[in-house]
């Protein structure tokens, strides 16, 4: 049994570091990351679970952090874009010009990173389906698809 009442401190395991932060039970993970912990990589877009700009990994799976309470994340491993460092998918986004304005990019990269980890042999169908969780207003979908395919292809050698 775990209960959290009123504003108080919780411990979140973010990018391999346990950090204490002050939140309300009603605060979303997105709010805690950005406004309490200064991790502004996850972007607020629709804040309704539609756009995917706020995507992070929770225990390796992509999660829209606007639709998760910060307190729900206690006891789980959270990875944000700040936790990736020159990974193949980040390099591939550069090489394939897979962004324009960049606002959606952290969310797309986190989703792609989750896909690469979970489905290293992903079919075109799986790639297409996963990428439908994120919206790019600049319509870089083709380049993003090429980026993720290049990473999956290279991982086979």
């Amino acid at each position, binding site marked *: *049994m*775990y*209960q959290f009442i009123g504003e108080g401190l919780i411990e979140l395991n973010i990018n391999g570091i346990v950090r204490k932060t002050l939140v309300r039970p*009603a605060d979303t993970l997105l*709010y805690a990351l950005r406004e309490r912990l200064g991790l502004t990589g996850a972007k607020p877009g629709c804040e309704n679970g539609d756009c*995917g700009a706020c995507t992070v990994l929770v225990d390796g799976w992509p999660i829209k952090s606007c639709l998760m*309470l910060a307190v729900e994340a206690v006891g789980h491993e959270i990875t944000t874009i700040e936790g990736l460092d020159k990974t193949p998918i980040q390099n591939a986004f550069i090489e394939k010009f897979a962004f324009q304005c960049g606002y959606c990019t952290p969310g797309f990269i986190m989703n792609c990173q989750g896909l690469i980890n979970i489905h290293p042999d992903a079919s075109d169908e799986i790639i297409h*389906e996963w990428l439908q969780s994120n919206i790019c207003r600049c319509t870089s979908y083709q380049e993003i698809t090429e980026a993720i395919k290049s990473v999956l292809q290279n991982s086979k050698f």
Partner: protein
Amino acid sequence: MIPFDFEYHRADSIDTAVQIFSDMDKQGKNPMYYGGGTEIISMGRMANISTGAVIDIKEIAQCKVQEIQGDHLVIGAGVTLTQIRESNLFPLLAQAGARVADHTIQNKVTLGGNLCGTIIYREAILPLLLTDSEVVIAGPEGSKTFPINQLFNQRMNLNKGEFIIQIRTLKSLLSLPHIHVKRTKEDKIHYPLLTLCAMKVDGQVRAAFSGLCDYPFRSPDMESELNKSATAAEQRVDNAITKIPSPIPNNLEGSAEYRSFILRSLLISILNELEG
């Protein structure tokens, strides 16, 4: 940001969850059971709902199972749509869940949450209606099991303080011939103009629908018409359409005439496929 405060309770047993609900209710906190929480968060942010306490049931052991127990597949209410899909123990349910919202959302939406949500489509219920699944619920009176076709009538009819623990489906029905079709207005990720699940059981076609009325449903009257095998398929379908239990939605997503047109063509197609 959610513009009101609430308490968060993560229950580790069924009894604890029920007790906390009772305690919070006595304190006037309008408690809510919390599964994936996507609807509570999104509707809370818009101030369309309000609560003083949520009781998270995801970590209750019985709500996390997904396994064969004797003659039944048992799926806990806290199992996510992604977990159902990845296991693929119930292929039709896996397919229906895979078209609820988008893939990332499916990592958070739970089976129980989809069944009890207020959004009218609740597509995960369609395979459960077709297979006459059972719903195990917990509440102040203890645990009880009901046929889903008895408990669900336009919505899940739970009493105050009750929540779904598990869904039980006969193992023998899990892999029968089935069809899942979802039609949307534009993009693949959208609410349905019409979602149709069909299954052939003991030589009879069963069908359940979302988007065709303001609630998901399975209609014995429609199935009766569809299975009059001495009649031509087109005529059976036309007769079945006259048995739709409520008006077809007529809105910006699609006119009633268009939804009806899609329905007719899909029903003819599934009859041809399932009747071979």
